[in-house]
C-alpha cells in the first residue's frame, strides 16, 4: 500500500511538473520548476534503489545542466518574452500527434513481458553497495564506452567555447 502511494505521489508530481515546465511563460520559472522536477525524479531513483544515479541526477542535471540553462537565460535579454505568444499557431496539431503516439504506446506497454532477471538483485547491491557495483561494471565491461563518453565531453567543452566565444575581429 505504502509503496503504491509513494509512487502515486511521485508520478503525479512529475507529470504535473512536466506540464508546468513546458507551459510557463517565463523561462526562468520553467527552470525552477524543472529543478523541482529533477528532485522528484531523483526521489524516484532512490525508490528504485539507484542511489548513485539519484546523486548524479542532482549533481549533473540540477547542479550543472540547469545552472547552465539559467546562465544562458540570464545572458540573453528576454524581457519581451513575457509579452509574446508562447506556442506556435499549429499547437493543436502537435497535441494531436503527441496524444496519438501516447495512446498507442500506453496500449503497447500492456503487452510488455519482462525478460529473465540478472544477478544484480537488491540484496546483492545492498551488500556490495550500489556505487561499487556500478563502478566495477563501468570500469570493466563498459570501459570503452566510458572512454568514448569522456571524449564526447571533451568535444563538448571545446565546441562550446568555440561556439560561444565572441569573434574577435580579424585584422
Amino acid at each position, binding site marked *: 500500500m505504502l509503496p503504491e502511494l509513494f509512487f502515486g505521489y511521485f508520478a503525479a508530481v512529475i507529470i504535473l511538473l512536466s506540464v508546468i515546465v513546458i507551459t510557463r511563460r*517565463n523561462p*526562468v*520559472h520553467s527552470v*525552477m520548476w524543472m*529543478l523541482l522536477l529533477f528532485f522528484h525524479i531523483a526521489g524516484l531513483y532512490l525508490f528504485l534503489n539507484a*542511489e*548513485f544515479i539519484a*546523486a*548524479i541526477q*542532482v*549533481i549533473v542535471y*540540477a*547542479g*550543472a545542466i540547469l*545552472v547552465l540553462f*539559467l*546562465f544562458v537565460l*540570464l545572458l540573453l535579454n528576454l524581457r519581451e518574452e513575457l509579452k509574446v505568444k508562447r506556442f506556435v499557431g499549429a499547437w493543436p496539431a502537435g497535441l494531436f500527434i503527441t496524444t496519438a503516439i501516447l495512446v498507442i504506446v500506453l496500449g503497447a506497454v500492456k503487452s510488455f513481458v519482462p525478460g529473465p532477471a540478472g544477478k544484480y538483485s537488491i540484496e546483492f547491491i545492498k551488500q556490495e*553497495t*550500489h*556505487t561499487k557495483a556500478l563502478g566495477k561494471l563501468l570500469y570493466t565491461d563498459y570501459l570503452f564506452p566510458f572512454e568514448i563518453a569522456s571524449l564526447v565531453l571533451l568535444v563538448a567543452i571545446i565546441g562550446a567555447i568555440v561556439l560561444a566565444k565572441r569573434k574577435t575581429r580579424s585584422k
Partner: protein
Amino acid sequence: MSDILNILITEETLNMLMKIGIIFLKIAVVLGITLLHVAYATYWERKVIGHMQVRLGPIEVGWHGFLQPIADGVKLFFKEDIIPANADKPLFYLAPVIFMVSALTSLSVLPFFDGFVIADINIGLLFLFAMSSLGAYGIILSGWASNSKYSFLGGLRSASQVISYEIAMGLSLVGVMMMAGSLNLSDIVRAQHQYPTGMFAIPQFLGFFVFIVAAFAETNRLPFDLPEAESELVAGYFTEYSGFRFALFFLGEYTAMLIMSSIAALCFLGGWTIPKFITDAMPLLMNVPGIVWFLIKVYAFMFFYYWVRATLPRYRYDQLMAIGWKILIPLALFNIVLTGTLRTMGVL
C-alpha cells in the same frame, strides 16, 4: 473508523513511526545546536578579528558582548522587509530559502560522533556535493529576481565562482574517496582511524590544500568574496534584501562555513577520532567523547577562516577564476593520478 485505524496502526507502522520520530528528534537537535553555533560564529568572528586588529569587538551587550548575536537576531527579525517594486516576487522570496535550505540539508549526512548522524547514507559525500551545488541557485535567483544591476552582477559572479570551485573541491575529495574506498562519511572517518597517520590530511596534503582554497571560494569568504565586494558591488547579490531575508542569507553563509569546516574535519582531520599513536601514548585521552575532538577540529578550521579574513587582501575576479581553473583543478587532477598510482603500488 476504528477498523480503518486498526488496519493502519499495526506493529509495522508503529515501528516506522518510532523511527520517524527519532529522526525528527535528531533533526531538531542538530538544527538547534547548529543555529546556535552559527549565531556565535558571527560573534567569535567579530571578536577574533577585533583582537587581531587590536580592538575589542562587541563588548556592550552582556558580559564581553556575549549576548550580541541574540540582539542582532532580534533586530533583523523586526526590521522592515523591503521588496523592490520590479522584482520577480516569487523567486525573490524563494532565493534565500533555497540558499538556507541547501546549507541546512547538508547537515543531515554529517556524522558528529560515532553513530550520531541523521541519515547514514552510502553516498554521503555525493550528497554534500549535490547540496552545495544547489546553493548556487539561491545566489543566481536572488541576483536575478532583485532586478538590480549590483545584485545581478554579484549573482552572476558568485554563481560562476561557486560552480568553478565546486569542480576543484569535488576533485580534491576524490583522493580521500580513493583512500577510504567509500563515499560514506562515517566510513571515511573509520578508514582514517585505521590509517597509520590517523588523518588523511598528511598523505592527502595536496588534496587538503586544494580543498581549503576551494572551501574559501565556495563560501564566498575572503580572500574570494568577490560577489559581495563592497567597493564594487555594494553588497552583491543580496543588496536588495533586508530584514529577515537578509538574515537567511547571512545564516546560510555561516552554516556553509560550518559545513565546510565539518567536511574538512571529517575527510581530512579524522572526524571524531584522534590518531592511534596519540591514544597509545596517552590512553587517558580515550575517555574523552568523540564530539569534543570533532568540535575542536571544526573550531580550529573556523578560526582559520577568521584568521585568513583578517590577514589576506581580496583577489581580482580574473585572478580568482585563473586560480580555480588553472591551478587548483590541475593540482587536484594530479593528486588523483598520484594517489591512484601510489595506491596501486601499495605505498599509500
